[in-house]
């Protein structure tokens, strides 16, 4: 049997017996993304549904000053709650999302034709406060508009006199694209699955073997070191590929159980998505395998390698942050940059926009080319005398 294949099989077999490696590569790595996806979506949906459609319970102070207003608001879904003594504090303490206060001179201002004031007390920095405040504000504006129109009619004027401009909105977004901000961090979970899938193997196969002093007898065999390295990389790639495939399947399953349509989104995460996502991420498997092995080859111990690779895990989050907070326009050349290409590609796939074969091809060619170059560097480090000597 070929020496590289021998190393490969042995490393896979040995590491399948290691609970920590199996757990991180085949359970933790692939599940964290889809699980977060489902949990966050459910929380988000449940939250929005409750706020947007249910009766709007708002403490009202001074309801007696404006019975007509309250009557109209009740028709539109407001359920007035008993007034509270210190609305500012209640909102700050999050005892109430929003509080409405009708001043005592409301009635006087209203009947004398002056703008009557209504106070809304809320905290815009609180997620839970914004939606009810916005709903209440919309109701109040509607009431104001209707009353204004009635007043104009009473004076013999057409209400259109007071509405010189009509805005007609034509939203070009699709349900999926509206989820953009929310989706921008999901590709990171694919990257993390690939990274974590191979990480413990990469540490174990180089830093771990050195620490356990088994590299020295291994290198006493009549096998060129690069062949040993290729076998080890193969084993790392096998584990991260397994992690990636499970992640893609996990997202696909998650897409089916998600109440996304309630938020006006739709996900098409069928077999086509799985295949495209795996293809896009393939070069990262090779890239992370050589990179993790290179880092592990510099570390003197298992622990040291673990620390370095922990730091390195932050890097893949950069493109996700970038795309999440900056309005970057995706372009074809971006597929040539590993991580960035995967970020755009997976976001598009999640949004339901197909990624062209050409773009996937660019990502594959450039990703594997970079992996090959770093692999050459890793091979050079592997040839060094120091690598095998543990003591």
């Amino acid at each position, binding site marked *: 049997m070929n020496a590289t294949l021998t190393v490969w099989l042995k490393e896979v077999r040995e590491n399948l017996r290691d609970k920590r490696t199996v757990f991180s590569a085949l359970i933790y790595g692939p599940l964290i993304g889809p699980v977060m996806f489902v949990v966050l979506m459910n929380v988000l949906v449940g939250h929005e549904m409750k706020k947007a459609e249910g009766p709007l319970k708002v403490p009202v102070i001074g309801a007696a000053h404006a019975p007509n207003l309250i009557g109209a608001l009740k028709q539109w879904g407001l359920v007035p709650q008993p007034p509270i003594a210190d609305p500012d504090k209640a909102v700050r303490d999050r005892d109430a999302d929003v509080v409405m206060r009708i001043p005592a001179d409301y009635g006087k201002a209203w009947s004398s034709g002056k703008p009557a004031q209504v106070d809304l007390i809320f905290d815009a920095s609180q997620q839970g406060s914004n939606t009810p405040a916005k709903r209440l504000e919309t109701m109040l504006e509607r009431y104001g508009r209707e009353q204004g129109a009635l007043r104009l009619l009473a004076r013999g004027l057409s209400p259109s006199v007071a509405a010189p401009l009509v805005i007609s909105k034509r939203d070009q977004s699709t349900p999926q694209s509206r989820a953009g901000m929310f989706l921008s961090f999901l590709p990171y979970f694919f990257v993390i699955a690939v990274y974590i899938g191979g990480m413990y193997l990469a540490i174990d196969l180089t830093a771990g073997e050195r620490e*356990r002093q*088994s590299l020295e*007898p291994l290198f*006493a065999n009549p096998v060129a070191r690069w062949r040993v390295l290729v076998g080890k990389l193969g084993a790392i790639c096998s584990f991260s590929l397994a992690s990636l495939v499970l992640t893609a399947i996990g997202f696909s399953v998650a897409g089916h159980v998600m109440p996304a349509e309630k938020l006006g989104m739709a996900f098409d995460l069928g077999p086509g998505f799985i295949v495209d996502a795996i293809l896009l991420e393939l070069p990262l498997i090779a890239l992370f395998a050589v990179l993790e092995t290179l880092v592990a080859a510099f570390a003197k111990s298992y622990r040291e390698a673990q620390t370095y690779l922990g730091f390195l895990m932050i890097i893949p989050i950069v493109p996700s942050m970038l795309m999440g907070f900056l309005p970057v326009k995706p372009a074809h050349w971006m597929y040539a940059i590993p991580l960035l290409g995967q970020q755009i590609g997976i976001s598009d796939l999640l949004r339901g926009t197909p990624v062209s074969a050409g773009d996937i091809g660019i990502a594959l060619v450039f990703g594997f080319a970079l992996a090959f170059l770093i692999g050459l560097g890793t091979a050079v480090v592997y040839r060094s*005398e120091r690598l095998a000597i543990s003591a």
Partner: protein
Amino acid sequence: MIEVKDLHKAFGAVKAVDGVTFTARDGEITGLLGPNGAGKTTTLRMLYTLMEPDSGQVLVDGIDAAADPIAVRRRLGVLPDARGLYKRLTARENIEYFARLHGIETQLMHKRRENLVDALEMHDILDRRTEGFSQGQRVKTAIARALVHDPKNVILDEPTNGLDVMATRGLRAFMRNLKAEGRCVLFSSHIMQEVAMLCDRIVVIASGRVVADESPDALRAQTGEANLEDAFVKLIGSEEGLAA
């Protein structure tokens, strides 16, 4: 046969090996004796091409280690200072892994493995994972692993280190057996009695240099000491780092 010609190796300013020359012949046991830190392990590491000498030459069965390290490693069976078993694999899997790296076909591999398991009396541990093995069980497994390709030359770095009396006796008998089979056996030790008992030829190393290269009898004659222990101390110039 292993020929070593004027090997030098320095780590920074430290000259670990500073001109070592000796020959280990087939059908003989050659002992590399020296105190701790004398340069024994570094010398052996250059023999099995883990390290490259700064200067000098290593020939194994006439093959230059610098020119064709892979061919040299094919002719060597090596028990390094670091035993380094794979603890999640059984003893059998450890042995078979190295057999496959040597490209030995399955049937021959099974035959060789059985022979070694018999010779080293390790039937009872063969299918246990090596995690938790005693020092003696570890050495046995590592030796079986190192010899599964039936090498003509055998290098053992401090093979009896950490073994109890029974295991040591067994290992010595095994080494005599290797010699009887006509192999070239080279081993290092800092234990004088062991070297005196086993070796046909003793190479004494101190501070990276060869200070004597003789048969045990000639060594006694050369130093004028009747007792080998006194002879070694005289050669090395101090008692430090030697064990009786």
